């Protein structure tokens, strides 16, 4: 869409975009370019010289057992977070849409975890399930479950999944509820007159109308689980025990900032970059026109 009435001024528009562009160039494009450049170089341990190695860093990363392991962990982690938070949010939104009184109160009571930082969400759940100080952690142990997420990998993964999903439910809930409220009542009424019960109406009328929002949220949740959950992992498990919760973002951080493997970390960054680009393209191509509020 083009505007007809436009100001004519030669210098001003450049001055107006300058601050945003300067930050974009210095802190986004230049470093991203550096990451791509570094990913095809290998530096000696003292940082004195580097040489061009084509795709050796990528080969090294992709044949690294730990990296493949981290890839698998990330897949399990992000799919579980997305499925859990979407499922719970949809269930709650459908109920909130059904109650006549109190829908707004429930909304108020359900949306505030959006404001809780992922790291804090992790810490809250860690407190509850801590094997020595947590009420539920100790409870599980009294029941005979050998619960100790500090030592048991799958249990640690389960804990960070639940904590990450807990924080994201509120976000999904807001969108599902907005979507449900925008579905015209006449549609469900027509289906009811035709004899469809509540369950049938949900699956044949409401859910299909909701699916664009669900798909959009799926992408957003995947991005969240891939990137924003760094805080949860770092604060609660530190990738452990024994790399059981080391998702890709945590590994990039660890290999680059702690283990100082520049080429390997850069190659991992480029792989992550490809994942973000893929997710963003999917989001904009398939979601743009189909979501109605």
């Amino acid at each position, binding site marked *: 869409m083009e505007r007809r009435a436009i100001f004519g001024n030669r210098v001003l528009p450049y001055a107006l975009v300058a601050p945003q562009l300067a930050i974009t160039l210095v802190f*986004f494009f230049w470093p991203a370019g*550096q990451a791509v450049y570094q990913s095809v170089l290998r530096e000696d341990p003292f940082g004195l010289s580097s040489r061009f190695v084509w795709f050796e860093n990528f080969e090294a990363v992709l044949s690294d057992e730990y990296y493949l392991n981290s890839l698998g962990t990330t897949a399990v982690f992000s799919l579980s977070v997305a499925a859990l938070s979407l499922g*719970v949010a949809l269930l709650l939104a459908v109920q*909130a849409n059904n109650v006549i009184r109190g829908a707004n109160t*429930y909304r108020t009571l359900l949306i505030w975890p959006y404001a809780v930082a*992922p790291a804090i969400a992790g810490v809250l759940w860690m407190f509850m399930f801590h094997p020595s100080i947590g009420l539920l952690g100790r409870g599980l142990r009294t029941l005979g479950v050998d619960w100790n997420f500090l030592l048991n990998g799958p249990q640690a993964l389960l804990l960070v999944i639940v904590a990450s999903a807990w924080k994201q439910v509120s976000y999904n809930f807001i969108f599902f509820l907005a979507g449900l409220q925008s579905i015209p009542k006449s549609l469900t009424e027509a289906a009811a007159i035709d004899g469809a019960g509540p369950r049938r109406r949900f699956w044949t009328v409401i859910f299909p109308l909701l699916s664009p929002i669900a798909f959009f949220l799926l992408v957003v949740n995947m991005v969240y689980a891939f990137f924003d959950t760094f805080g949860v992992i770092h604060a609660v498990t530190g990738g452990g025990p024994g790399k059981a919760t080391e998702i890709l973002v945590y590994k990039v951080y660890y290999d680059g900032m702690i283990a100082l493997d520049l080429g390997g970390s850069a190659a991992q960054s480029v792989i992550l*970059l490809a994942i*973000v*680009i893929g997710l963003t393209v999917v989001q904009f191509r398939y979601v743009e026109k189909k979501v109605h509020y």
Partner: protein
Amino acid sequence: MVENRPIGRLLAHFILIIGVIVVAFPVYYTFVASTQATQPISVGQISLLPGDQLLNNYAQALSHGVAKTSGTPVGGMLLNSFIVALLIAVGKIAISLLSAYAVVFFSFRLRMVFFWMIFITLMLPVEVRILPTYKVVAELGMLDSFAGLTIPLIASATATLLFRQFFLTLPDELVEAAKIDGAGPLRFLRDMVIPLSRTNIAALFVILFIYGWNQYLWPLLITNSGDMETVIIGIKRMMGGADADTDWGAVMATTMLAMLPPVAVVMLMQRWFVKGLVDAEK
């Protein structure tokens, strides 16, 4: 509801109440723990009713921090977080408003190139360029400073897109009228566009304040001294070391304090928050 189904409604309330409890319980648990003495907490004897150490724990955290692991007072961290969140929110809104204004109301060379450059930053989160960005900030001497904590984060594709979207809905007649009355572009921006954008600005402010407050990876990378730490990363440092040494009462109090400001912003500005969230993702 089409039919009147009291049992179905009752079930709906029941499910919602369970949902509210699951959502609230972790916070309640931390709250009651933050009102109890550290000694019983560390052996797992947490009562589910508030204790009597509330003032003690919060005062201890605010003024001294957790002495055994990191002596940084939480009061200072909260102030850092507040400054960072405010600078990020205001900075993002300001530069996005200006660049969206330029893109919509002017015709100039490279206009679309600039627009796409801003748009593409969506695909370049900090996580994919950790080391090189760190290097740039280090070379500019911005480590351990508010400038370093905020400036690299204030480019915003989302806010720019949102403002652009809104500006495109302003009628051309408005611009014509302003021109006929002799208003230049800056006058038009100040007297028409910004006042009309008030609701959008409020909505964005809520979202961006929370975004800034909750930053984790970035402050972790570029703060080395306790003085510049934000409260979210401060908690992690407090829990460092062996479990037995952790001053749980103060840690729990700090966790509550770290959560309170953004949650309060969401609750108090709920209307703008929901609008901002839904608009920003459109």
